[in-house]
């Protein structure tokens, strides 16, 4: 198999899987659909590995392969191909995407087993992975935008998967609208580039950027800022972050897929992919880095106070993506993508473990109701610990090395990047706190009612009636909207990892990877698998690739270890030794808690300044404009015209043969007259 073929097969597998599942639909038994979906992605992973092997066989100075099926546009010197761009970066991405997605599919096959829409679910899931792969493999910006929009559409379908839940459809719409704002930015940015350079494929863009623009030229900066808008919207960075926590309305494996392997990493990939242009527009890159730093702090701070288990992890994702955006914008490419990979592992794992807990809780997601799951769900607990250690960058776990590589690269640039460096370490402390807050609250302490049910009976707790946890008071199911068991929760039976082999088998490899994945890029050049692998992609960087400053590196590692261990000890103190401490802090600093719990008032700000005016205009348009002008004038006018016209025609249709003949002859005389007059 040639390197020109294997990436196409990577793309084809999920597409074929999606089409098969979607077209056969109800004819498929659920287990078959799940198997097809999982196998399709697994096969894509195999082809991704083949692509990797073939790519490594190429000489390192020419490790790029473009392959095209046909021209989409070939007009007046503009050539846009349906082509792929295979280089170490995109290969790295497809490996992570297909690898993690395979495990998430496997997990879903267990978790969603009794859901009514199981078949539809797998069609969506495969479509999602296909879109993401298309985005990653695209050989030009047009194809990238197509994949980008597909990902947005797929996220909409999956977030509002339980479409009978109003809150879920609202969340889906929110995610879609914000993504479309990003799409607009991306398209406009692309047009800006096209206007000056006249090309859209990566090869020409990268080769021609330095001649087409002055360094930091305003047009280039504007173009890159617009593209950043796209990246921010997809990656949930400030100020486009509000959709991500709401996207928790989707099934838990979907959250896992969106957060770990696909969607939100698209922005990181985009910046890394266009690094040549971003480096040539340092202003735009600086904006990206600063926004990333802000996001990691703000999201981390919100994560500290959220009580919905999935939302805490969602804010943690936002914060970690903030690191990556900051990293790749500050030219910390190895660190950025290294962290993206380890984050994919441990975040997928954390979501899977959270799904298992939520199952055992009977759909209740509030940390306030959880406690003592340590004994009830030992396997889940172990996985959550592995993911938690990795997320909080505990020494020797994968997240420790990736986050440090990232911050080291940022810090090594000196100057104002020190501020980002510091923000990264402050965020690291936040990370440790919110991670261990989740763990201590969910797993330590006396078993809660639901955990006791699991311990006593070996079956998941079933509430008397299912409620939508996103309505009413999240701690108290009796205040929530009641819904039937086919909606809003994965099926009638609640599957948790201890009882479902698919879920266990998906979590074990991720747990192992979350612990050990750091070995591919150890500090001080002990191992540099990833930096060597990505080097051909970033060979043209004008910033030092993998700086050599072991003093700084050592300082970072020690600082990071101290932060992780001290913060963990503090967290243990706050939530286990003296459980009242957090409430006391909250009472001391009510304004801070209020700020965090209201998500820094971003949602309220948008609600007042964007959503309400738009809703008001829409209301006016539908009440006045549509009723009077569209319905009254256009529709009423058109139908009135047709009615009057047909009444006139009907009057001619008398049924009298002779009047018809008169019409024919009259018509003939008029035609003759016309020719006579014309002949004059």
């Amino acid at each position, binding site marked *: 198999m040639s390197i020109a073929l294997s990436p196409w097969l990577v793309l084809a597998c999920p597409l074929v899987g999606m089409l098969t599942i979607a077209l056969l639909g109800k004819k498929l038994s659920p287990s078959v659909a799940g198997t097809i979906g999982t196998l399709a992605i697994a096969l894509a992973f195999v082809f991704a590995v083949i692509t990797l092997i073939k790519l490594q066989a190429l000489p390192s100075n020419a490790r790029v392969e473009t392959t095209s099926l046909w021209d989409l546009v070939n007009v007046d010197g503009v050539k846009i191909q349906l082509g792929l761009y295979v280089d170490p970066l995109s290969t790295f991405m497809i490996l992570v995407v297909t690898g993690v997605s395979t495990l998430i599919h496997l997990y879903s096959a267990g978790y969603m087993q009794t859901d009514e829409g199981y078949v539809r679910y797998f069609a969506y899931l495969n479509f999602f992975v296909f879109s993401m792969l298309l985005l990653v493999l695209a050989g030009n910006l047009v194809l990238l935008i197509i994949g980008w929009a597909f990902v947005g559409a797929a996220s909409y379908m999956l977030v509002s998967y339980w479409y009978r839940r109003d809150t879920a459809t609202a969340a889906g719409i929110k995610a879609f609208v914000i993504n479309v704002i990003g799409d607009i930015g991306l398209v406009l940015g692309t047009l800006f580039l096209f206007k000056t350079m006249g090309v859209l494929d990566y090869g020409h863009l990268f080769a021609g950027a330095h001649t087409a623009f002055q360094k930091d030229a305003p047009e280039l900066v504007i173009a890159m800022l617009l593209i950043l808008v796209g990246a921010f919207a997809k990656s949930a960075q400030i100020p486009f972050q509000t959709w991500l926590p709401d996207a928790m309305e989707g099934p838990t494996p979907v959250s896992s897929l969106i957060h770990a392997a696909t969607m939100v990493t698209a922005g990181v990939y985009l910046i890394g992919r266009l690094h040549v242009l971003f480096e040539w527009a340092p202003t735009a890159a600086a904006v990206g880095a600063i926004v990333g730093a802000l996001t990691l702090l703000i999201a981390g701070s919100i994560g500290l106070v959220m009580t919905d288990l999935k939302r805490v992890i969602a804010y943690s994702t936002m914060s970690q993506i903030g690191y990556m955006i900051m990293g790749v914008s500050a030219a910390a490419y190895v660190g950025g993508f290294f962290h993206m990979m380890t984050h994919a592992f441990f975040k997928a794992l954390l979501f899977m473990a959270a799904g298992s807990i939520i199952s055992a809780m009977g759909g209740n997601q509030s940390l306030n109701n959880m406690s003592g799951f340590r004994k009830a769900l030992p396997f889940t607990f172990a996985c959550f610990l592995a993911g938690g250690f990795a997320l909080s960058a505990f020494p020797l776990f994968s997240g420790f090395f990736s986050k440090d590589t990232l911050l080291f690269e940022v810090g090594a640039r000196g100057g104002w990047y020190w501020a980002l460096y510091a923000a990264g370490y402050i965020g690291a402390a936040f990370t440790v706190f919110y991670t261990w807050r989740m763990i201590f609250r969910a797993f330590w302490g006396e078993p809660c009612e639901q955990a006791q049910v699991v311990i006593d009976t070996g079956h998941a707790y079933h509430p008397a009636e299912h409620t939508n946890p996103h309505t009413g008071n999240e701690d108290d199911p009796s205040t929530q909207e009641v819904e039937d068991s086919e909606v809003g929760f994965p099926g009638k039976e609640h599957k948790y990892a201890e009882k479902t082999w698919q879920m266990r088998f998906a979590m074990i490899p991720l747990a192992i990877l979350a612990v050990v994945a750091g070995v591919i890029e150890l500090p001080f050049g002990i191992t540099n698998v990833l930096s060597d692998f990505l080097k051909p992609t970033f060979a043209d960087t004008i910033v030092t690739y993998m700086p050599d400053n072991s003093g700084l590196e050592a300082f970072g590692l020690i600082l990071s270890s101290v932060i992780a261990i001290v913060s963990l000890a503090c967290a243990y103190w706050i939530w286990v030794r003296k459980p009242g401490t957090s409430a006391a802090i909250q009472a001391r600093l009510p304004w801070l808690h209020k700020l965090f719990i209201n998500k820094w008032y971003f949602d309220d700000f948008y609600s007042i300044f964007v959503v309400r005016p738009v809703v008001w205009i829409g209301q006016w348009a539908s009440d006045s404009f549509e009723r009077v002008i569209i319905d009254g004038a256009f529709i009423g006018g058109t139908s009135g015209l047709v009615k009057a016209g047909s*009444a006139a025609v009907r009057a001619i*249709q008398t049924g*009298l043969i002779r009047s018809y003949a*008169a019409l024919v002859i*009259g018509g003939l*005389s008029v035609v*003759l007259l016309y*020719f*006579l007059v014309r002949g004059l």
Partner: protein
Amino acid sequence: MTFLFFFIFAIIALAGAAGVVVLRNPFYCVLSLVVHLIALALLFLLLEAQFVAVAQIVVYAGAVMVLYVFVVAYVGGGDKPDQLWSAGTRQKALAVCFAVAIFVELAIALLGTALSALGTDGAKLSATYGTPAEIGKLLLTNYLLAFELASMLLLVAAIGAVALAGRRGGIAEDEGNLSPRHGLVHTPSPAATGSMAEGVSGYGVTTPLPDPQFEGRELQQPARVTAEDDR
């Protein structure tokens, strides 16, 4: 000499045509047409079209007209003789206007044309012009397709005529047992037969819905225009 013959035949032909239009008794109309056709055949002769002239007399004035006479005899003039000019409706006035307009326009077109050949007696003719041999040759060479199509048309028409008028044909089966819905005669159809008038007037397109406005009343038939009103 030709001049004289032309006028005689043309006047006879026109008189025959006028007779067809104005005579009340259909039988006389047919006879008038026969006269017209014969005069026309003579005009053809003046134009050196001997074969067509003979065919006109044999086929038209002979065979076709005999068919007409048979049908007139069978159907009769009708109980009510055709009331020519009786009802001077707008439509009839209009009809005359149109006819006159067409004639005027045709005349202007003919006389005003720049086709100089129209003012001549015609081209010099070959010896075979208009002879049966010449016609036969043309029919079987240049105009074979038209010839074959015409034969096919005749065959179809013959079959059609038999099907229409045959006593055992489909249409004759329910003779004298006309359903009001399907009869050709104008009778008010029951509601909900789906005629255009119903569709437009909004009555009983399907089964009539109980409309509070019509409660307690019979659903009214759409007002239909009768034949008498139209005249």
